[in-house]
């Protein structure tokens, strides 16, 4: 017993002796994490600066994407032929991207929320198998799913045709897991007591869902809608294989087709506009999420918002 009591004091003196010099600085538990700090902010610069440069050159007055020739909105609407506003193909790509984003979100979120509620409460082989398939669709390499859907649409007689319909269907399949996973995580934290209370107080089963559960799920549903929209707008693999012609090629495909073929800064402008739409959705989503989940204790709203990922 005495030995055990003595041991820490020996340890403390030896550590106090060691605490000098470079080694002492390295081992000190109170020092600033210098290397980690450097690495983190270095990483942030590396990850964001190239994109900022690309955005900057979308405002270039000249045709170059590498030499700065002054600030202008030429590639947004100034140029009468090749700006995003006047070039029909760029215009179409932008509109198509946004249409795919809105339509897919409108289908995926209700489908996913209903699926999450059903699978969470209905116990059995079929629902757990379906949940398993849903998780597989979440992690399958996107190219594989895209090729499989392409084969389904082109080689088998179905009501689907290449173009917007097939793209929306494919994107919905790939994105379905977002609302399901987020809503199920939220269902676990909510628990069942509120619903039971509602039923004990005389609510019908549908009423308890509509008037108690759905309002409580609203923040989660909302986050998943924002995530799905932002992800669909950025999607490339599925939309490319399931597009029919140039009129159903969204911005990402446009970038892929022309990035190596000496494009003008109009391409940067196009990409910037999609980025803006995506950021706008996320910012609005974050503000609205904070408002929806007001009154709930939380250290960091961003963290809760991000936990959906």
């Amino acid at each position, binding site marked *: 017993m005495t030995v055990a009591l003595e041991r820490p004091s020996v340890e403390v003196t030896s550590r106090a002796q060691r605490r000098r010099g470079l080694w002492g600085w390295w081992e000190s*538990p109170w020092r600033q*994490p210098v290397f980690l700090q450097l690495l*983190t902010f270095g990483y942030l610069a590396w990850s964001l600066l190239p994109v900022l440069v690309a955005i900057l050159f979308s405002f270039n007055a000249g045709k170059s994407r590498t030499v700065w020739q002054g600030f202008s909105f030429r590639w947004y609407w100034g140029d009468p032929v090749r700006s995003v506003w006047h070039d029909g193909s760029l215009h179409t790509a932008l509109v198509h991207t946004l249409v795919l984003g809105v339509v897919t979100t409108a289908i995926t979120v209700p489908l996913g929320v209903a699926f999450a509620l059903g699978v969470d409460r*209905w116990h059995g082989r079929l629902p757990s198998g379906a949940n398993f398939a849903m998780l597989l669709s979440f992690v399958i390499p996107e*190219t594989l799913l895209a090729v499989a859907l392409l*084969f389904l649409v082109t*080689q088998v007689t179905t009501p689907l045709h290449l173009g917007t319909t097939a793209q929306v269907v494919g994107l919905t399949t790939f994105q379905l897991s977002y609302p399901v996973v987020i809503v199920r995580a939220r269902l676990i934290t909510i628990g069942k007591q509120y619903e039971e209370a509602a039923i004990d107080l005389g609510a019908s*089963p549908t009423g308890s869902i509509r008037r108690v559960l759905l309002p409580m799920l609203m923040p989660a549903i909302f986050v998943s809608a924002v995530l799905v929209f932002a992800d669909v707008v950025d999607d490339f693999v599925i939309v490319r294989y399931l597009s029919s012609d140039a009129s159903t090629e969204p911005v990402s495909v446009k970038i892929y087709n022309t990035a190596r073929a000496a494009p003008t800064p109009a391409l940067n402008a196009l990409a910037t506009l999609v980025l803006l739409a*995506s950021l706008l959705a996320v910012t609005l989503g974050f503000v609205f999420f904070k408002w929806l989940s007001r009154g709930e204790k939380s250290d960091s709203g*961003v963290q809760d918002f991000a936990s959906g990922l």
Partner: protein
Amino acid sequence: MAPGLDPVQGRSVSTVATTEPPPTAPVSPPPAGRAVRLAHWARRNWLWILLASPGILWLASLFLVPMYVVFTIVFGQIDPIFRTPLPVWNPIEWNTVEFNYVFTHIFGSDGYFGPALLRTAVYVLTASVMCLFVAYPVAYYTARYAGRRRGWLLAALIAPFWISYMMRMLAWVNLLQNDGLVNKVLHTNVDWLDGKPYVVVLGLVYGYVPYMILPLYAGLDRFSPNVLEAARDLGAGRLETFRRVTLRLSMPAIIASVLLTCLPMLGDYYTADLLSASPSTSMVGNLINNSVLTPGQTGQGGAFVLIVLAVSLIPMLLYVRSARDEGVAS
């Protein structure tokens, strides 16, 4: 067991309830309301089935069926005149001509698919390890030391999620062009975009690192810093604490995040296309992409899809299992 006696709660319940116990029966139900409530529960079950079935039908017809269609085409027939694939739905009638063709060109004497597969493995492994070396310290710093800056830092770390992959690659195409900023700053004249393997690998790292940081952050944020303090108090040095406590506690997150970045990389063809456009750096994704869009090679593309599916099945199952253990998929 006495008939009609619930062994757990020790109070008498109706036989209907023993065959299907209501999971949330109130402690002392009013006798008259019982039948009504059970009827509600039965109806509720229908409600759950009703809610789940559209999603189940969707996944069955638009996820599982398409996957099966790939098999029917790879092992199916080819129209002798039009050279178009004819899907064969019955597995008994499947033939392996297409698959044998692909296999002999991987392992056979004229195996020109083999190098691409090997290259994919090397690229994906190298890029994943490099991703981990970047992502782990960043996630660790954010989880442990960010303090009040955490919100902003997280927002900046998530930002690449909202920037399309294509735009991020476009940004690097701009920078790495012959007259691009990289050559100007370094005063060099290098053709960076001319089939350089390290450019492709770095492009993959740049593209997929964000997907690794978040799961790692979630895993590192979960365990209490008290554990680390305890390790230091008990005499462990900085590195020993990291090796024996931090690393071990974050192992599930490391595995999940590596799987999450490896899987999409296996099907990636666009990074190699944009940053090199040379067959000398093509990956299995490029083989899929080239054959799928070439008439007459559809079955060959499908065979590559099946090979990638076979390789990624185990990581996929591992990830799904780890996600189910945590109750959340990310």
